């Protein structure tokens, strides 16, 4: 029957059209979503390539200008941008942020590896008491104990030091929990084999536990590097010496209360500098990043 054939073809064509329309709408939704995400970044990058007057006048540029080299070298070597603050070069602030982020990430991983190793591979009095003491720090974020922690730092003479900036932040319940969870999956046979070979606990840690943990360490490093780089309240409290200024806090100090007379192009340039390292880490190490994120939250 010829009519039936036509019907089938028409139906198939209609279904194809509907599928194509659905696909188009899906792409459109995702592209719009990405555009909303990217808009502020685009405006910032474009702004960092124009001169102060263009932005100050309020003619918000949508396409890159010609001042990029001037802005980036000025921000890097001299800093500036805010009207009421003493300028700190972006290179200094980025260096401080980098040192802070690496010290926090490495410190957290190191002390958590050691304490998780002790809790899992040894039996000793008060083992679980210590474990709970570490665990409970999850419930004491710095934001809820601002003043007393500041007073402790003053008593210890750690204000305005890199030690003061990083040391209090390296205690980590999440990293300890993650490593403990992972160590529990290491087969007992490995420990037995090590004992038969006459290897002590430290040898076992160095030759077996550490190599097995590399993926976990990499995943955790990505998360903790971002955590360290993005610290705000703590550096704001701890640092008054501007040679120790970190880039996120330094940037908001440049803006002040949002004075229209600010050199916005330099502020935007500094914002691009502040943005690049953590975003690069996430994009380049995406696989470890997602692993780290989904596993630390378990």
């Amino acid at each position, binding site marked *: 029957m010829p009519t039936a054939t036509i019907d089938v073809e028409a139906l198939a064509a209609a279904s194809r059209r509907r599928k194509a329309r659905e696909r188009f709408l899906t792409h459109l939704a995702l592209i719009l979503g990405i555009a909303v995400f990217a808009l502020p970044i685009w405006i910032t990058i474009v702004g960092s390539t124009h001169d102060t007057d263009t932005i100050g006048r309020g003619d918000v540029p949508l396409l890159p200008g010609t001042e990029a080299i001037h802005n980036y070298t000025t921000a890097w070597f001299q800093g500036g941008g805010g009207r009421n603050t003493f300028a700190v070069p972006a290179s200094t602030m980025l260096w401080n942020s980098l040192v802070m982020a690496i010290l926090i990430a490495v410190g957290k991983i190191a002390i958590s590896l050691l304490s998780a190793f002790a809790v899992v591979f040894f039996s000793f009095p008060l083992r679980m008491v210590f474990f709970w*003491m570490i665990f409970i720090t999850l419930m*004491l974020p710095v934001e809820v104990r601002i003043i*007393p922690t500041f007073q402790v730092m003053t008593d210890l003479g750690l204000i305005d030091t890199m030690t003061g900036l990083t040391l209090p932040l390296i*205690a980590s319940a999440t990293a300890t929990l993650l490593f403990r969870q992972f160590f529990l999956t290491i087969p007992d046979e490995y420990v037995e084999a090590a004992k038969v070979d006459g290897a002590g606990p430290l040898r076992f840690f160095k030759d077996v536990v550490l190599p097995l943990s590399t993926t976990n360490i990499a995943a955790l490093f990505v998360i903790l590097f*971002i955590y360290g780089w993005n610290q705000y309240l703590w550096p704001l409290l701890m640092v008054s010496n501007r040679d120790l200024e970190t880039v996120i806090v330094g940037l908001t100090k440049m803006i002040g209360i949002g004075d229209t007379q600010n050199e916005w192009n330099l502020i935007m340039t500094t914002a691009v500098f502040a943005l690049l390292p953590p975003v690069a880490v*996430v994009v380049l190490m995406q696989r470890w990043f997602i692993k780290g994120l989904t596993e630390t939250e378990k």
Partner: protein
Amino acid sequence: MRKKVIFRGVALPYLLLVPQLAVTIVFFFWPAGMAVWQSTLRQDAFGLRTEFVAFENFLDLFGDALYLNAAWNTVIFSSSVAALALGAALFLAVQADKQIRGAGLYKTLLIWPYAVAPALAAVLWLFIFHPSIGLVGRAFGAIGIDWDYRVNGGQAMTMVVIAAAWKQVSYNFIFFLAGLQSIPTSVLEAAAIDGARPFRRFWTVIFPLLSPTAFFLLVVNLVYAFFDTFGVIHALTRGGPGNATETLIYKVYVDGVQNLNFGSSAAQSVILMVIVIALTAVQFRFIERRVHY
């Protein structure tokens, strides 16, 4: 849970624990203890005399209009941030989960804002909404809207909510996408064969299967909005105009660091600690249950 085979050691395990415990005791327990102790003290205006007042600092807070205002702001702010960040992330995750070309690229382009610090997110949105240099801020002015978040409290609240939610969408997106991808295709095919239309399929089949993820994310988002958004508010509005965006965390900072009212600030810290403990307990109880899922 523990291992059957272990090492013998008397001093070694303690030595391994020393670094973590030292940092924990000096920088966590000591200050937390001091917060509790200080919350029961009051200093006179010149900081010369300190007296024990038991719970008076707490009672004063509950009668203080500014504190209640901060509590109310926190409720509005946190629920708006969570709703916006979860809704947008769920929508985008459902789109990105479909079988389309370029799904990997879309995913990468949607997850990077996770790396942006809350304070930096605030700065980026300031470039958009600033009344005289911002793209949208000026456009609002041009079409006759009286836009200046520096004087209008409602506009200021809108801005901090957008900046804070924007940064959190990526995080939620990653978890929603992982949740969607773990739903067995057989379940979806069965629903499709039964003739359920996509929209109906989503609410009756997919969403219930996602609800553990959604609930987990709700708690995480509330914790984020409560405690990690200090930078957004400090960078954009400083709690103003006229306390319109002052949240509980921000008020601890203002009373402790700027007004030097230690007793009250410590009492507020103690209240916040109770809130964190409650939220963490909810989170862990829930995760215990999620294992069965």
